[in-house]
């Protein structure tokens, strides 16, 4: 256990360490300073912008920025929906995959357009290569770019940009072409080298040693896996996601993919430090996120590595580690690290079945999505933390005897209204969604042995439904699975939750930052709240933990906690 912990500490230290220069690089790109890759990427960026007919010199205020964001996302949504529902008639379909059913398409496109990547289908049987490349992979790039752009606009407003927060299209192009593209290219190359396929040929038919015929699905996997991890997308080429050897072939790729999950979400905090010219503040925010991440990781690790009861129906006695549902190549420790990282960051790729996590391991995964701000989705994780910062500033600011101020700007009624709206959405989506699912399940499923869309009874079945709405609301996309989720109820309800949970927590905080930046900034004195101090860090941590606890403790108790206590 000690060795395992030391290895994990080392892995995390490397990820944190590399996130710092990456964050600075992202800031350089958005500040328009020169970077190493400019000679290749700047012309490409210009070309994309010219092709799209964007007037790069135009600056937007937060309203225009938000409008551009929504409009571009709507266009991509419509195009994506059209492609998957018509994919049978489109090229690059060697396996002859049929058109997607409309409610499933509604869910799938909403899922990819919102950077969620919740999948109510298995990629190898439901999507053509055309859809995988031009819908899924494309959206995995641009939605991650959208998140980065939105957070950079918010950071500029926090830094004091009075009216203009940037040009959305330019920011989107920069994020996609100059940050995501080179990283994804590099990662995809390594994946290719390690064994991930990259082909447009149809599924391979092979004869096994025993003489049976086996069909092995393949396709342009390596490219998609790279951006799936880097852009906190998580949607796999295959239904089995990163447990599939083509998506995650070797121990090296396991570590690299974990790095890719965390790198940009972590880096955005450092980017913030550079853009607002407050390094100490970035250190504080990063420390708070890490202080939320480490306990969840410890919980997940302890839960997965601990002895688990004798598996039902097998007389093998208690086992030393919870290996059920785990990929043997990955093991318990890395699965725990992966599951906590992928849920904390709203990535959603999996390297082991979350349905098979121990109850507390599952709790750690869900808690990351409930808070949804521990590094979080690319860009949006930081935006969520910003809302918590505003609330913490409000409470702490009063306690030092001043009207609360964030970097000198007064936090007043309008800001509290917007912060409240942003904070309220998340529990609303999860609690009402799960309650509705419980109600529908109780109403449609007879008592006794019938399980309806659940595969497990009792608290575990509850967790399956809770996890699905949690994942949708956190724009995470991982599935607990064990849930028959390709039904109109789940397709439509989770799609609506994903859409709301994407745009409300982006637009509302943008309005909040815009409202703050319009105010005059008071100078900092010994009497103002130093939000880069350790004391404020503790306050912020406590605000996140207590609000999270108060919102989600009842469901946590009804699901994973009840299951854990029953088993122990």
């Amino acid at each position, binding site marked *: 256990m000690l060795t395992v912990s030391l290895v994990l500490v080392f892995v995390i230290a490397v990820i944190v360490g590399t996130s710092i220069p990456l964050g600075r690089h992202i800031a350089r790109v958005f500040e328009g300073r020169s970077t190493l890759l400019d000679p290749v990427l700047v012309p490409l960026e210009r070309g994309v912008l010219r092709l799209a007919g964007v007037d790069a010199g135009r600056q937007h205020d937060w309203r225009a920025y938000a409008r551009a964001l929504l409009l571009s996302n709507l266009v991509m949504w419509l195009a994506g929906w059209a492609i998957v529902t018509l994919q049978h008639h489109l090229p690059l379909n060697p396996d002859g995959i049929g058109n997607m059913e409309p409610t499933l398409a509604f869910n799938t496109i909403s899922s990819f357009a919102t950077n969620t990547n919740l999948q109510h289908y298995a990629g190898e049987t439901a999507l053509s290569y055309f859809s995988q490349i031009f819908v899924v992979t494309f959206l995995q790039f641009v939605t991650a770019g959208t998140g980065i752009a939105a957070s950079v606009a918010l950071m500029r407003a926090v830094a004091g940009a009075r009216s203009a927060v940037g040009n959305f299209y330019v920011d989107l192009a920069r994020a996609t072409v100059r940050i995501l593209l080179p990283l994804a290219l590099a990662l995809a190359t390594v994946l290719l080298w390690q064994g991930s396929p990259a082909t447009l040929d149809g599924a391979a038919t092979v004869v096994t040693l025993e003489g049976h015929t086996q069909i092995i699905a393949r396709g342009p996997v390596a490219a998609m896996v790279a951006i799936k991890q880097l852009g906190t997308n998580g949607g796999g080429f295959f239904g089995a996601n990163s447990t599939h050897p083509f998506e995650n072939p070797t121990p090296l790729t396991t570590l690299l993919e974990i790095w890719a999950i965390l790198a940009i979400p972590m880096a955005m905090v450092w980017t913030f430090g550079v853009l607002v010219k407050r390094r100490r503040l970035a250190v504080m925010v990063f420390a708070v996120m890490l202080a939320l991440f480490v306990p969840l990781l410890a919980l997940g690790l302890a839960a997965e590595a601990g002895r688990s009861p004798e598996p039902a129906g097998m007389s093998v006695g208690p086992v030393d580690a919870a290996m059920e549902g785990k990929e043997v190549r990955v093991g318990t420790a890395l699965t725990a690290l992966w599951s906590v990282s992928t849920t904390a960051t709203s990535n959603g790729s999996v390297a082991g079945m979350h349905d098979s996590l121990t109850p507390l391991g599952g709790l750690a995964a869900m808690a990351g999505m409930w808070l949804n701000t521990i590094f979080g989705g690319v860009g949006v994780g930081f935006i969520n933390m910003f809302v918590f910062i505003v*609330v913490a500033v*409000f*409470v*702490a*600011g*009063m*306690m*030092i*005897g*001043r*009207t*609360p101020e964030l970097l*000198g700007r007064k936090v*007043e*009624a309008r*800001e*509290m*209204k917007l*912060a*409240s709206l942003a*904070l*309220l959405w998340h*529990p609303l989506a999860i*609690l*009402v969604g*799960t*309650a509705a699912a*419980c*109600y529908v*399940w*109780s109403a449609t499923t007879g008592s006794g042995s019938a399980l309806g869309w659940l595969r497990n009874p*009792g608290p575990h*079945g*509850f967790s399956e*439904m809770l996890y699905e709405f949690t994942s949708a609301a956190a724009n995470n996309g991982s599935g607990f699975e064990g849930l028959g989720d390709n039904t109109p109820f789940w397709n439509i309800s989770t799609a609506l939750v994903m859409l709301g949970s994407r745009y409300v927590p982006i637009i509302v905080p943008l309005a909040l930052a815009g409202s703050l930046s319009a105010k005059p*900034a*008071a*100078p900092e*004195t*010994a*009497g*103002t*709240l*130093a939000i880069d*101090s350790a*004391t404020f860090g503790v*306050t912020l941590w*406590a605000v996140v933990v*207590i609000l999270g*606890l*108060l*919102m989600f403790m*009842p*469901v946590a*108790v*009804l699901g994973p*906690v*009840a299951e854990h*206590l*029953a088993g122990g």
Partner: protein
Amino acid sequence: MPARARALSIWDPAIVAGAVAGAVRKLDPRQQLHNPVMFIVEAGSALTTLIFLQEVLAGTGRPLFTGQVACWLWFTVLFANFAEAMAEGRGKAQAETLRRTRTDMVANRVGHDGRVTTVPASNLECGDIVVVRAGELIPTDGDIVEGVATVDESAITGESAPVVRESGGDRSAVTGGTRVISDWIRVKVTAERGHTFVDRMIALVEGAERQRTPNEIALNILLALLSLVFLLVVATIRPLASYAGAEIPVTVLVALLVCLIPTTIGALVSAIGIAGMDRLVQHNVLAMSGRAVEAAGDVNTLLLDKTGTITLGNRQATAFVPLPGISAADLAEAAQLASLADETPEGRSIVVLAKDRYGLRACEVGDRTSAFVPFTARTRMSGIDLDGRQIRKGAADAVMAHVREKKEEIPPQLEATVDRIARSGGTPLVVAECGRPLGVVHLKDVVKGGLEQRFAALRAMGIRTIMITGDNPLTAAAIAREAGVDDFLAEATPEDKMALIRREQREGKLVAMTGDGTNDAPALAQADVGVAMNTGTSAAKEAGNMVDLDSNPTKLIEIVEIGKQLLMTRGALTTFSIANDVAKYFAIIPAMFVLAFPQLGALNVMRLSTPESAILASVIFNAVIIIALVPLALRGVAYRPLGAATLLRRNLLIYGLGGVVLPFAGIKAIDTLLTLAGLA
């Protein structure tokens, strides 16, 4: 009156009795609507009461439990109402005293034809002229247009020593309800009917005009958010639990909801606001708006007039320093002549010094033809024209400008002397005759004791003090050093003062200042916190957003502290209220679900005896904590002038950590008592 108010204890029996009655009266749901948190509690109380009645009539359920929950929920509402009524009660007692002064007043109105008629004071209009003689009450607010009188203002200020009021200048304003003790005055009415100072004061202390302040509104939004979140949490529990086949009684859900929503701060928030205003009144300061009180807590810069605030206000002449070729006695004589009409302490001290040192008698000049030249803020000189002699005395630069105007030489010794005196912290007063400088009078300032520590405390809070003075920069610097202020504005004209305020505000700073003269009015209006002295002109009082009845400029420091204390109390109780919820969850959630999942008994970390006792103990704790915190809400949290970081650490430990820990102990204790009493 406020002098007596200061003596009122928090638990004055009359106020408590009034508050108990008020608490019941405030049960009216229309009154609760302005407070979403307490409105939810009242709705919950009504709902559980109905369930209780239904259970009793139908003989089902657990009426003993439901009845107790309903009962304590009503108590929660009553306790919140009581807190508000207590805060209002203190103001009402003061308003009552004020009202008595207002009733049955009559006025002697002077008509256009000069005839005096007696009319009720309530008939007076703006611009009317009234005559007030010794022994009569001044019927309404106004400015003296003729006469001098001593006025007893104790009804307003609590100060029993009468003050002199006279026409013209900065001492001309009189307040309705005060009494003329000697002489008579003609007063021009300046206040609209029903809008006199006393009317405003009554409305203020009664809280009738109380509008919520910006921070209070923002806090209420946060509280509404939390209430909504918990409403959501509680509303979804029934369908969620239905999955597990658990039937959660509505009474339990209401109890959980009331325990979770921030009732502690919700119940006390308006009491805190009223009590903050009341604390100002007890310091004899009237704030015209709550906004100003909050702004006081945010002040970055204090502008303090040197005279009367930092120094004792009576500079004394200590030496005559003649220029070469002029005898000290000549200088003294000229200085004395120039000061004869100067009624300021400085002027008088020159006359006295000349008499003491050189035996010059002031009365010797009395019968000669003379014209006094009064001091103005612009010329910053005063003097006398006497038998062809033009004697002027004043600030060094002002007199030097005067000398230059007369095309006379400025001897180098003059500047040297002026510099030397100024650098020693004294005030050089240059005397010139017919444009020829004679020498310098050395005036010395006496800095008030104890100010240095107060300025240091303000600095720790991040507040910069700037001393405003008409002195030259050297004198100002010396006094500034002695008093320990951060900065000074020397040779200040009203325009300079205004410019300084604007400059600070442009940098995003909030500025507080005091003032009394009419020429202070624009600056008072511009400042974020403008405290007018009650002795000042009505223009100054109109311009400022606070009036200090004691006319003590140092009061600004206390006003800032009260503003900070108000916000700190709100913040501390909000933190406490939210932190409390953790323990309540651990009490109620196991109790709620333990039937469906017996294993959840493990979460009952407090080992509460039964599910009913756990829920009841939480509800009781939730109600009782409101009453326990009423004194804190009314008095405000302990205030110490510390830096922001230290304050935050202290308050987080006490109200944050304390707020998490205390309810665990409290709920356990109440649970034990309930079990012993056999109530659950």
